[in-house]
């Protein structure tokens, strides 16, 4: 498994081309007004798999709370992307287009199943590969996912108790 995934990830230049194609195909399938970021279908499922992998150890243990925390973080990521400049939204759209496009997903992440079926350790392994990847494009994609998921979680008061942050003075906030 590990060997196979690594051999996929050696795709290099081909991978970069798929990355570009994935974004293009994804954009072509979207409704008009392509300038604003859209999160749906497999792209949303990808984020739903990536958020718990990045926040492993930080999310609540209790199932209902955990589910709510993941949903709120996915929503927070969506909001954060919607506030970025349109040119950056397009870049992020391309990244999610890649993640949503099954051949690209298999080639560049090694995740063989749909995102809904992907295991957390499998997702964590692809994130770790992208983090250290020789292709700068994949390292920056990892960086974007890192910042979006962690930022959207720790922006929420629900995350603060576990880290001992009292939050701002209530009278002023």
């Amino acid at each position: 498994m590990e060997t196979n995934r690594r051999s996929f990830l050696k795709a290099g230049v081909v991978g970069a081309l798929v990355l570009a194609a994935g974004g293009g195909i994804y954009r072509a399938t979207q409704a008009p007004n392509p300038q604003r970021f859209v999160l749906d279908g497999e792209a949303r499922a990808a984020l739903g798999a990536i958020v718990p992998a990045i926040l492993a150890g930080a999310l609540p243990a209790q199932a209902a709370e955990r589910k709510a925390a993941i949903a709120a973080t996915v929503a927070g990521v969506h909001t954060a992307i919607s506030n970025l400049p349109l040119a950056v939204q397009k870049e992020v759209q391309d990244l999610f287009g890649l993640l949503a496009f099954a051949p690209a997903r298999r080639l560049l992440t090694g995740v063989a199943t749909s995102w809904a079926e992907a295991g957390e350790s499998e997702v964590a392994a692809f994130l770790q590969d992208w983090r250290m990847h020789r292709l700068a494009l994949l390292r920056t994609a990892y960086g974007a996912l890192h910042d979006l998921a962690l930022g959207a979680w720790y922006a929420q008061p629900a995350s603060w108790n576990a880290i001992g942050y009292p939050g701002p003075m209530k009278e002023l906030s």
Partner: protein
Amino acid sequence: MNDFIPDPIKQGIARGWRIIDGAALDADRTLEADVVIVGSGAGGGVTAEILALAGLNVLIVEEGALRSSQDFKMREAEAYPSLYQESAARQTLDKGVKILQGRTVGGSTTVNWTSSFRTPPSTLAYWRSHFGLAGFDERAMAPWFETMEARLQIGDWQAAPNENNALLKRGADKLGIPSGLIRRNVKGCWNLGYCGMGCPTNAKQSMLLTTIPSALDHGATLVTRARAERFEIKGEHVEELLCTALQADGVAPSGRVLRLRARHFVVAGGAINSPALLLRSNAPDPNRLLGKRTFLHPTLISAGIFPQRVDAYAGAPQTVYSDHFLHITPIDGPLGYKLEAPPLHPVLLSTTMNGFGADHAAMMRQFPHIAGMLALLRDGFHDESPGGAVLLKDGAGVLDYPLNDFLWDGARRALLSMAEIQFAAGASAVRPAHETARAYTSWAEAKREITALPQALHMTRVASAHVMGGCTMAGDEARGVVDPDGRYRNLANLSVHDGSLFPTSIGANPQLSIYGLSARLASGLAQDITGQPAPRPGA
């Protein structure tokens, strides 16, 4: 919302300030003024007040929105998208450096951490010897710094440093490294620690609360949520400035256009945005200098974990510094660095620190015990530190700032210095912001491991809150697009008054350098236009 802190912006609006919200425009508009100023930050704010006091009809155009103390809720989720360029996620072209710049009325001064330093004499000396800026010595600049220090209540901080800052002093003292206390532009500060999200108590004497209200009280007009697209230039003359009105969220154009006409134009959009506007306008640039020599104070980060609570989110964010590592090598030698402490808030810390999953979560659970330290590399004084270049990508300014071995050498030394100081201050562990670093538990281990860390793009975390340069001011055309009076060369009625003028980085937090320089340039401009000596702004 609270109703016990008066909101001077709401009061000013009630008094009849002339404010046009671009997002509320239902038709295209053409506006005229004596002087149009692009940007309401450190350079634009100071310029607006001086020109308005001189009796000129001033129009300020700002890309961000007008927010005030009632909007400042000390919450990162709201503050970053509403007050920062690109939601505080601006990056260099290769995504090697994260950049914090303000985008709101008051610019970065609304969200900075209040650190106030005069331009170091060694920096001014370098500008004189290398950029022909003969009139820029300590004595010539001192009155301008004094004026702005008085105007903005810049003074010694009376309270004790918070633990996050005290640790820098304690560790430095142990090692015999000199440190100092940072002066701040505050009045009646509550010592809350949320300067970076907009001051909720109106203590910070930012442009939002000082020069901009003064200019508006003297008849200036403020246009918000309007992006300066390009100047229409005929020959040597700027005819007008075309602006795109933005929708309420500040992201997409609303479709409305503003044409701003004036006798004179002042560009003060800050580094990156100012040169980008001039590049979009095809401003004369015979020596291909525009946008070049853009500097960042590339900043390295080290987290120390301490047995005691640090609570780095609480209290005045920056009160202690050390310039030791700026002084031990020549200014034009290997990169020197200034040491400071950053405030830590959950989003800022979690996104700055590397890694994910259980390891990252374990670090975050130590949040109250984490102290942050920053090393700001002084770039721009060496052939191998030429800065970056602003390019246009889909019309927007993007900074191409390659990170080279000369910089990585400085980064490695900076991470080592910070770890040594943190252990000397009693840290139980130190974790540099680097993809392959761990939390080291002794100085011996940290020294060995940090020395061996690969310093490379996307591996070492590099950040910047100080973008400078790109519209270099110099004594001759071969070295700078702007002359020593702040006039853009080869254009008769365009000036630049902001941090983009600096020929190098400053080697200190730049706000007071921008205030002092802009006060000098704006006073000269007021005199040129009115034929009268410029008035001095008073507090």
